[in-house]
């Protein structure tokens, strides 16, 4: 299964959610799984969570995967508090992602 890396910016909230969503979907449209590089991302709002949620649903529908890599402590905290931590496939580095 081929994968492509998509790097998220510092924040994922209502301002850039559409842009980031389109970027991720573009990769899925090509039939590739997405490795989401979240090393720069320090904050995800509930709108941001919906982007991740939707991306995962679209990926699953196409038989593809969405991997979250390098999730920061702050974002992991947000995911813990909202119960999303076990929902996504998270890895510390790109190398750890199963290919």
């Amino acid at each position, binding site marked *: 299964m081929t994968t492509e890396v998509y790097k998220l910016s510092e924040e994922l909230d209502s301002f850039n959610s559409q842009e980031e969503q389109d970027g991720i979907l573009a990769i899925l449209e090509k039939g590739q799984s997405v490795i989401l590089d979240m090393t720069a991302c320090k904050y995800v709002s509930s709108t941001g969570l919906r982007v991740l949620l939707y991306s995962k649903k679209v990926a699953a529908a196409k038989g593809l995967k969405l991997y979250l890599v390098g999730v920061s402590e702050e974002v992991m905290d947000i995911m813990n*508090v909202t119960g999303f931590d076990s929902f996504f496939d998270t890895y510390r580095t790109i190398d750890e992602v199963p290919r």
Partner: protein
Amino acid sequence: MKIPDLLHIRESLASRIILWVVLYVVIILTISGYVGDYFVRKFIWEVQENGIMHAIAARRLSLALTMVSLISLIVLTGQLRRLIHKLIDPLTAFTQVADEVAKGNLQATLPEIKSRDEMQQLRHSFSIMQQSLSEQMEELKQVNAAKGRIEGELQAACNIQQSMLPKAYLPDAYSHCLDICGQLISAKDVGGDLYDFFVSNGKLFFCIGDVSGKGVPAALVMAMTLSQFRNVARYEGNIRQIIQSLNATRCEGNDTLMFVTFFAGVLDLETGLLQYCNAGHNKPFIMNGSISELPAKPDLPLGVSDDAVYAVREYTLQSDSTLFLYTDGLTEAMTARREQFGRERLQNTLRKGAGCRELIEEMTLAVRQFVGDAPQSDDLTMLAIHWKNE
């Protein structure tokens, strides 16, 4: 081509003025030329022929010609003045009309321009501008009226939302052991936070939730979730079933993926046994001398996955315990410098210890003082439950 056409006389005031001035100068020069020439030659000849006296007599003709040129000078000046007035007067009239329009009288009448030159163009442009302004003002009036209607409707919707939420615990058979207070202050007219509580068969059912998003879409999901909780909890006593039912409904047709963080519990008012489920919501605080968070590791919020599994936890309340539930609008309330209220300040305010209503009032005050002038960015929702074993 005729000369007038070449200079576009009919369409150009400037050309007309130039032509008149040229005519003016030419006539003056010509007349002066003739007069001068004739006078000099005649005088010299008369002097030669008849001597000086005769020469002076001949001046009378020249004088007459000089008079003629003087008269034509006056007439031409009169024409020039008329022409210049023709130019200035309409401009003055246009200035007056512009002043009228600026005052708000869009219907002010423009001066009549009979010529087909730049003045006519100016009048035409002015007329178009008046028309355009008039239309825009009309459109603005309609937009404002529509806006007013929408604001009225939002206010009505806000009232409906508020009336869906129980405010205080009304005295009944359990007043001796139970006290509750709930409050929701939405950021916009309508919001996505919710809470509920009611007593049934010696048990208190309660919940608190937060729909992802704000405004009308979140309010719609809020209303659906709240009414479903109420309906299901009235006949279904099992907390897991309640949550799973809510989750199943939220997952159905959830194209916009609006999920709901949700905390629901059942408190046995005789024994103090609390059974609860946490669907991605902030853990409530429990106060009974000391303050701690209720052990409630969050599962997935409602609406994320229809396979989601929800753990039911149990906790036995000590007598004289207060349960404080809230949404992230409280901890994330921000000052203008984007500093958050946070859990520490929340706990410090809880430490002051008070009855349910006072507690919520204290907390609201603390948040308002902290936030200062910054606008409210999220719904502020709190639910306080106090139970005594009596």
